[in-house]
């Protein structure tokens, strides 16, 4: 087999047939350059996935233009809105006295799950265990 080239990326995308996976694996066993290329491709994908998702500035993408200003409420509805806001504020004060959101320790969960699956056989233990999100 010649160097698999784009097939390496397709392998990582899960787009190869079992026969193609076999052929690529056979080639990788003999070709250090392709192994290095596969590892670099996998690493680049992991790095890309770890980048934070940023919200684009308003107006940069179609359909994300600034929202027009709301029209003014009529006076009677203004009083209702003010009353609702006061109620919401008072409820918010009550709600706010309790503990706020706390982050979950996914690393801890990952370590605990991994440690548990490794004590017994199973498909996961046979394959390998690699990482947490």
């Amino acid at each position: 087999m010649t160097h698999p080239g784009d097939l390496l990326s397709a392998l990582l995308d899960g787009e190869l047939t079992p026969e193609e996976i076999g052929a690529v694996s056979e080639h990788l066993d003999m070709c250090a350059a392709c192994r290095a290329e596969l590892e670099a491709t996998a690493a680049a994908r992991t790095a890309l996935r770890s980048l934070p998702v940023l919200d684009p500035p308003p107006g940069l993408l179609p359909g994300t233009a600034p929202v027009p200003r709301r029209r003014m409420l009529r006076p009677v509805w203004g009083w209702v809105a003010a009353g609702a806001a006061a109620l919401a504020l008072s409820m918010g004060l009550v709600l706010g006295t309790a503990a706020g959101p706390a982050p979950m320790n996914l690393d801890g969960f990952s370590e605990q799950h991994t440690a548990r699956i490794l004590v017994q056989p199973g498909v996961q233990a046979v394959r390998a265990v690699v990482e947490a999100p």
Partner: protein
Amino acid sequence: MTRRRLLAALTAAVVLLGIPVTATAEDGVAEMLEHASEAEFHGSGVVMCSWEGDSAAATYEITRADGMSMIQGPGGALMSHDGISAMQSGSDWYGTEIEQWAAWSVSDRYSLGETVETTRLGRPAVIVTVLEDGRPRVRLILDVESTVPLSTEILDGDGGVYCMAALFTFDPGTPDMPGGMPEMEEMATVHPMAEGTALPDAIGGYRRADVYDAGAGSVQAFYTDGVFSFSVFEARRSDRPVEFDHAAEFDSGGSRYRRIVTPTNMWVHWSAPDRSYVLVGDLPPDHLTTVLEALPRPGDRNVFVRLWRRIFG
């Protein structure tokens, strides 16, 4: 030769010779997986999971000898031995010890299908299919001499490959390993809990094998069918995994969940009215759908219930 090794060798022989083993179906799967997880070798490979357009892959190196395994992946190294696993972060090692665990058994829904001779990495090999209720669920390519899986494919309910792992270098034998587990910077012990969760005892063919304390008011319920496994972490509703903030949403049984695909696992998060949940495991997507339907559904609390609970607990 111990009874276990004898059984494993017999099973391997049966598998490798292609003798029909459906009469002892589940025992055949159990022995094959057990033997495969004990084989000694060194290799490097690629592991990948893909679900509905989300995919993740990584390359790794694995060494297994003397009952110890060491895996070097993009996130660092992982060593495991006798219920203790150690993960490397920088130059330090952090250990996790599972205090006790339920006995392992394979669900009787699995059986071994026919075997086909092949070659892989220039070596004689056999393709072994694990059937679930008669349908292919896992396809393994085992090295004949060592019975190490050179390739593993997990199939979704529609027969498509959901996860795969393939070695591209393979060196059987007894590789060099460190003399023991590394010096740990910290060691955490995972304690079982007799009570502590209302999560079901069994879901979609998986049994709840163990329940552990996961710290900070969280509980880990570990489910397995002997082939696949997953943990459900049940936490306070206010606890939020920030990693899921931008995760893909998906629909299951009419409810919305968020998911992250890693090279070896599926992570799912949702908040039910009373608790927040994270599920992690290698179960195929069609199994996941069944499992999610049996767990508390996503939903918001009624504002007055929320207010009441905040005030009166």
